[in-house]
């Protein structure tokens, strides 16, 4: 069984490796300009110098830390707001369409405004990161609480459960999976916005490194930094899957 499970992983890795080798050959034969696509080996080999010149690992943690801070802020805003929208039905109905619309707009374009208010510092990145994160959290919190099964609420009522226990022991646990979906989307959007703004304004962690390496025509380093960003997002994606599994074992 376990052996069977590994087959796709091996196929995937093999495919990746094959692509890399093909690319390497393509560059070597001059089919692809080296200044456009570097050799995969060069990309890998550029990690040490990237670390030395730009402190890749340090900046990895800068981006990671800001994402964590922005996510915390997004939770702080999104969860209570979602709860409020649930409690006040009229507000919920009034705002749900707006929130969905806002979620589909390029909030990132507002960065000049935030640069102006918070300055060119980490605060701007955190605040801008938290807005697109808070929206799905609020939406999903409301949805989760609204979606609590009527039967389960009736079970609570039939046992004369107090209002407080009703919330703690029935509504909250049943809403958790939905809320968590919101949190996961929120984290990904937060990360995306933070990296996007880092890249746009040349400030902060990994996004800035990509921008700077590109400005320096250090193409292998640019690719290496991009790989680092992919690693961060994978880390969050995977990490949240883990946390979710841990919270709801079945």
């Amino acid at each position, binding site marked *: 069984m376990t052996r069977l499970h590994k087959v796709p992983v091996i196929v995937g890795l093999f*495919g990746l490796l094959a692509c890399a080798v093909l690319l390497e050959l393509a560059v070597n034969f001059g089919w692809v300009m080296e200044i*456009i696509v570097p050799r995969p080996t060069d990309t890998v080999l550029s990690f040490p110098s990237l670390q030395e010149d730009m402190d890749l690992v340090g900046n990895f943690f800068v981006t990671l830390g800001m994402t964590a801070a922005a996510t915390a802020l997004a939770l702080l805003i999104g969860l209570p707001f979602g709860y409020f929208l649930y409690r006040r039905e009229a507000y919920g109905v009034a705002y749900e369409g707006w929130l969905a*619309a806002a979620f589909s707009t390029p909030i*990132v374009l507002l960065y000049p405004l935030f640069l102006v208010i918070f300055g060119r510092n980490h605060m701007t990145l955190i605040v801008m990161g938290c807005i697109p994160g808070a929206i799905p959290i609020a939406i999903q919190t409301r949805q989760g609480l609204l979606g609590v099964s009527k039967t389960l609420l009736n079970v609570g009522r039939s046992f004369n459960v107090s209002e407080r226990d009703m919330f703690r022991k029935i509504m909250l646990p049943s809403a958790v999976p939905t809320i968590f979906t919101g949190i996961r*989307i929120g984290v990904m959007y937060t990360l995306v*916005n933070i990296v996007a703004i880092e890249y746009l304004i040349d400030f902060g962690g990994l996004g800035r490194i990509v921008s700077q390496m*590109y400005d320096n025509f250090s193409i292998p380093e640019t690719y290496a930094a991009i790989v680092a960003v992919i690693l961060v*997002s994978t880390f969050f994606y995977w990490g949240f899957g883990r946390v979710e599994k841990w919270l709801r074992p079945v």
Partner: protein
Amino acid sequence: MAQAGVIKGTVPAVSSAERSFDGRVSRIRLLTCVGLIALWEVVATLGSYGILYNDVVPHIWHIVIAVFYELISASFYRDFGMTFAAHSVGFISGASIAVLVGIWLGTSKLIREAMLPYLNAIGSTPKIIFLPIIFLMFGVGIESKMAKGAMSAFFPVVFTTTLGMMLINPVLIRVGRTFNLNKWQMITKIYMPAMVNPVITGFRLGVAITVIGVLVAELKFADGGLGYRLGIYYEQFQIAPMYAVIVLIFALAAAANSGMTKLQDRVNRHMAPTTSKGKKARASASGGLGVVN
């Protein structure tokens, strides 16, 4: 209280009560708008007295006038046209490739499991970070915006299509087999109609995300398009026109989103969940997460 409210809420409300509820909703919306505008104006006014940041929060009427000037200027339509062209071409090409790949991933378990980790990794990475590569490969003209748009559109659509394929109710496929459908009939009569809903969801997300993708590329490097226009205004510190462009972009994005939502509702009007096991393809929620920027 809360739970009683929910339970009673499911009983079809009396129409007069319904009307008064609608009234409250509109009132809340109106008040929120007024409140936000008032807040903005307070900040703007303080700004012109030099109390807060100078100039960056212009008065609403300045923005309204700027919107008006944008709307009557020919160059706005030129920029809009470029963005629109980049968006359309990018979205259509990205989404079509994604549908094909999605179908492929949906049918082959091995390929799916082999590729999904990588797709997820790239799908959840901010696509803006690939801009250098795109500029390198596609140059800096509109082609790069199209490529960026295609890349942005690809991921939500590929995820929802794959999900849609996987969630097709297997009994419907068996029905097809019992009626001896050939491969082509299987695709056109069963797979495609059964997947319309999740794929449309992917399209809806994709349209929104392609807007962001194209604009950001234009912001970084372009010779036209709304993102470029925005960038110029910002660089020249023409703040009111900058907000005007942002307002217009937001309005267009919201309009595109509501258009897609309407389309989705139309497609779904007869539909109970098309998927098996009651698992609704809630692509807008879970499938949507790989789709960012």
